[in-house]
């Protein structure tokens, strides 16, 4: 009897480990699947736009200096799961992404898998970036490669068990990784759709402005209704009409341009870096985001 139980237990363990291994194997993406069309002439100006709206520098810029194009990484992000150390994404061939190819970059941005085939933690918001159009990702990659090479790698993440096991991210992805493509709403204007794309895909506004569940995934029904600061200090406000019903579309555009809010106030915390980027976008893009943001309903 005992022996049979033991055999059963071992069998269950083997099946469990095999299933875990199978389910959590990082996706491998072939170049032909991603690089459509096969060749692409990068538009560096659009790449810069994606860099700004994507807010890459907010996390990846080398701390304690003012140049947003020096992406040496090293910022520590304290979270409930432990401390993440933001990696180097400068054009350095050894420590940054200088040695990556387009397929590797797109695989990281869409599937959260590194060139060495490891899962990347969703502190890197590929949950949003995966909705970016292929040409925008390619332009962004080309733009990043024009930025300075900074040597030096960030320390490894210091996470709590079981989050310290990267394979667990595979399960997280099965549960929470959403749609890969941005779906325009044909009932809305081109301006609204441009705004929706910028806010949801590269802009990843919902990543901070939404509450998360215990496993750190955004609660979809409460998207944009406010969340916790990524730096661990304080909260991030509700930006739906449930809260900001007094704001006109122009008021949203103003915040993204100057940081000034309609109640004679000014943004603080992590939003300061966001505005430093969005003020460099075209006014047409800021206005498109504003039109979309003004259309967001409150908590359901």
């Amino acid at each position, binding site marked *: 009897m005992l022996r049979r139980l033991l055999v059963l237990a071992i069998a269950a363990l083997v099946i469990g480990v095999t299933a875990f291994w199978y389910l959590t194997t990082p996706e491998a993406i072939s170049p032909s699947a991603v690089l459509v069309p096969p060749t692409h002439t990068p538009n560096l100006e659009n790449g810069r736009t994606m860099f700004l709206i994507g807010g890459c520098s907010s996390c990846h810029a080398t701390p304690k200096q003012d140049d947003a194009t020096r992406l040496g990484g090293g910022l520590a992000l304290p979270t409930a799961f432990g401390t993440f150390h933001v990696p180097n994404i400068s054009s350095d061939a050894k420590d940054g992404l200088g040695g990556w190819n387009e397929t590797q970059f797109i695989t990281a941005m869409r599937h959260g898998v590194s060139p060495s085939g490891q899962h990347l933690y969703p502190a890197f918001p590929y949950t949003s970036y995966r909705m970016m159009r292929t040409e925008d990702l390619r332009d962004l990659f080309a733009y990043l490669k024009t930025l300075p090479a900074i040597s030096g790698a960030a320390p490894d993440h210091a996470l709590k068990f079981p989050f310290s096991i990267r394979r667990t991210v595979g399960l997280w992805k099965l549960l929470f990784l959403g749609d890969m493509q941005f779906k325009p709403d044909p009932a809305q204007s081109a301006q609204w759709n441009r705004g929706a794309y910028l806010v949801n895909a590269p802009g990843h506004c919902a990543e901070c402005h939404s509450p998360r569940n215990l496993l750190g995934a955004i609660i979809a029904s409460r998207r944009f209704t406010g969340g916790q*600061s990524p730096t661990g200090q304080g*909260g991030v406000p509700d930006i739906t009409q449930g809260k900001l019903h007094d704001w006109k579309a122009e008021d949203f555009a103003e915040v993204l341009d100057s940081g000034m*809010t309609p109640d*004679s*106030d*000014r943004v603080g*915390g*992590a939003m*300061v870096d966001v*505005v430093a980027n969005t003020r460099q976008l075209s006014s047409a893009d800021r206005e498109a985001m504003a039109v979309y943001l003004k259309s967001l309903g409150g908590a359901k």
Partner: protein
Amino acid sequence: MGRPAGAALAAAFLVLGAGAVIAQSDPIATRMGLMKQNEENAIAVVRMMRGQAPFDAAKVDAAFAQWTDTAQKLPSLFPDNSKSGQKTRAAPKIWTSKVDFDEKAAAFGKVVADNRDKAKGSLDGLRAAVPAIGNACDACHKDYRLAKQ
């Protein structure tokens, strides 16, 4: 000096004195009031830069005077008993990084002083001066001011 003028002066001193007492007893309200005035002055200046209001050297100078006043007072307005209450958006980090916080307040004061003459001299001067001041505001708000809830 006639009696009415003397009385007015005495009243002014009283008001100033009362203000100083309030600053000591209620630092949160004091700093919130200063920040509100800072932003109102910033909005007035930005409107001039955008051509939404006429350039007014006196108003520009008054804005710079008020910002100078803020920079001088800031380091003393965050005593240990003012960490919470009245919906303050002061980040807890202020009290663990007070040296850096005070340095940023001083840097703000310096940028204001360095740009005052240029800004009140002409509209072009104002346009050239204000971004540096905005950056000094943001440099502090980024680390030490929480988002509004």
